[in-house]
């Protein structure tokens, strides 16, 4: 179980979560699917609570739950035809036409015989299902391992020669993306220094070390240089169901300036950042306010007493300011994020 902020970065947190869940599943004792789901959920909830603002933890839990259910359903397909009988109008509204569901291929030959709630051997269910489940979680892990590569595999199609790209903050995904494009193209990156954390310095250093021509500019000049920029590339902390995103503070400034100049805004992020939440951007606290010390030194004794310093870590960038999301699973417009989330997670897991 990880303690406070000892795991850094969305992807690390997601990886860690998947590893913990794999361990939980491999050790858990369960005799039917409900028990297993309850176990995963419980652990997942605790993990998510340990880092309430790291959404990738919850997302990974949801993803694992989804995969587990899917494996279970494909393993028991046909055996549980009973669900057909309880078909009702509200289900009809929820799931649409019934035909869609029966259309799935029945892999009867690869089926494992599953006996739920077998009183004589309560572990038989777990024994039979575990290998498939481990595989399902391994899929999630593999996806996380390769996320940077997959996001940046098409980088050269997005960045053309002699383009000027603006980015802000130090997103690992964006860094990988830009470096990957650097192998094929000769282009220029302008990095905003991203006060007050100044992560932009780190980013600029890393990019120029990779041989990309890099400029570092203060945040305040973003608007002024926007007219020369061909594309704005942002990283994301979390992508919300409406197509908006949380990103390092300053991103909103860049996105709005880009809108004023009709410059395309591209967001690079792995799919584990898709967060099935809606109302986050209403919550002031969701911006994750950091300590004021990077804005105002604690040694400014007199001032500390009289001024309240606000230092938000994230910006909420609305869907109307984003042109495209580049994920490890293809490129999507903000309006289809909703559909992606529907496909990636199960509806009943939104609240863990």
């Amino acid at each position, binding site marked *: 179980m990880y303690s406070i902020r000892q795991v850094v970065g969305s992807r690390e947190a997601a990886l860690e979560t998947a590893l913990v869940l794999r361990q939980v599943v491999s050790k858990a004792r369960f005799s039917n699917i409900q028990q297993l789901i309850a176990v995963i959920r419980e652990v997942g909830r605790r993990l998510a609570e340990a880092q309430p603002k790291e959404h990738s933890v919850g997302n990974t839990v949801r993803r694992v739950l989804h995969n587990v259910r899917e494996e279970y359903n494909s393993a028991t397909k046909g055996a549980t035809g009973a669900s057909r009988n309880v078909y009702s109008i509200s289900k009809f509204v929820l799931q649409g036409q019934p035909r869609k569901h029966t259309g799935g291929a029945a892999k009867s030959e690869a089926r494992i015989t599953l006996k739920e709630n077998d009183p004589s051997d309560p572990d038989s269910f777990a024994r039979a299902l575990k290998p498939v489940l481990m595989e399902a979680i391994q899929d999630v892990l593999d996806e996380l391992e390769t996320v940077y590569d997959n996001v940046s595999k098409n980088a050269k199609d997005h960045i053309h020669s002699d383009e000027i790209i603006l980015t802000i903050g130090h997103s690992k995904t964006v860094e990988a993306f830009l470096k990957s494009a650097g192998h094929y193209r000769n282009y220029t990156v302008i990095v905003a220094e991203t006060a007050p954390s100044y992560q932009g310095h780190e980013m600029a250093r890393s990019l120029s070390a990779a041989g990309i021509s890099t400029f570092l500019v203060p945040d305040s000049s973003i608007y002024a240089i926007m007219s020369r920029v061909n594309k704005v590339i942002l990283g994301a902390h979390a992508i919300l169901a*409406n197509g908006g995103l949380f990103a390092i503070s300053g991103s909103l400034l860049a996105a709005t300036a880009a809108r004023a100049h009709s410059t395309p805004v591209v967001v690079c992020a792995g799919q584990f950042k898709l967060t099935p939440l809606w109302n986050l951007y209403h919550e002031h606290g969701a911006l994750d306010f950091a300590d004021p010390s990077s804005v105002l030194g604690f040694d400014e004794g007199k001032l500390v007493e009289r001024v309240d310093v606000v230092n938000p870590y994230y910006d909420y960038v609305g869907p109307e300011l984003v042109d495209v999301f580049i994920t490890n699973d293809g490129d999507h417009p903000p309006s289809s994020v909703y559909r992606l989330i529907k496909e990636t997670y199960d509806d009943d897991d939104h609240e863990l």
Partner: protein
Amino acid sequence: MFELVQALNDSAEELKRRSPNPISLNAGCELFIAFVTLFPHESDNFAELKKELEQQGRKYAAEAISFRDKIAELALGFIKDDSVILTHSYSRVVLKALLHAHKTKRISVYVTESRPRGLGLKTYEALTAAGIPCTVVLDSAVAYVMDRVDFVLVGSEAVVESGGLINYVGSNQMAIIAKAANKPFYALAESYKFHRLFPLSQYDLPTHNPNILSFSTPTARSAGQDSASTTVASEASEKSSANKGTSSSPPERAMTQEQIAKNPGVDYTRPDLISLVFSDVGILTPEGVSQYLVGMFAG
């Protein structure tokens, strides 16, 4: 089986004819008919199937009562403490959501008068009785009030396939103003209000008829002249009548029944003006609504 569907269609028609405002009714009927046609049945004889369908219908009707509570609960997450809400006319689901929010949060509400039926006053009474500070605003004052408002919350007659909204007239202008002021515009709709309809403009609504917005030929002597001079003439006549009015008592200016009849009862709000639709199946973007509708009716 075919007969049954036919019968259902007929009775739906009948119902429609009798109701003054058939849109939401229509949505419900269509849902049931679609369900009947697609219901995967295993029963051999028709009587059994009929019984089964009847049961399902009743069950859904019973469930449907709880939908509003579910929507109210969903909406609660979006209502911040101390927020000011603008709503339109009277809607039971909006009322429920507001009353539910009132239990835990401090909210204040502006409600439009919503002429000509004045249903906003009904909302006003219900909210005031519950202790929610509420002010009625003129339909024409929506733009004036918008800056004071945190978000707009409206009910719906139906949500259509484009993700757009059909609601009591005035919703569209409210959504346009909300968009201009960058305020969220939320619609509440129970899932049985999802309607398989794809209006492209106001005049594609089933409630539209040629009488609405029609110009009557003025009976005055200016008949037959071109329209420009008509207005001048009518203005002139109005002026003269106003002059006359000041001498006696100021006349109460109100629309006549015939004038009201030429006005629409509902209007259509484009999906791009709607931030989110809260429904018992979840919180949806307008695109999400169309997905559900396609799921039910297409194919």
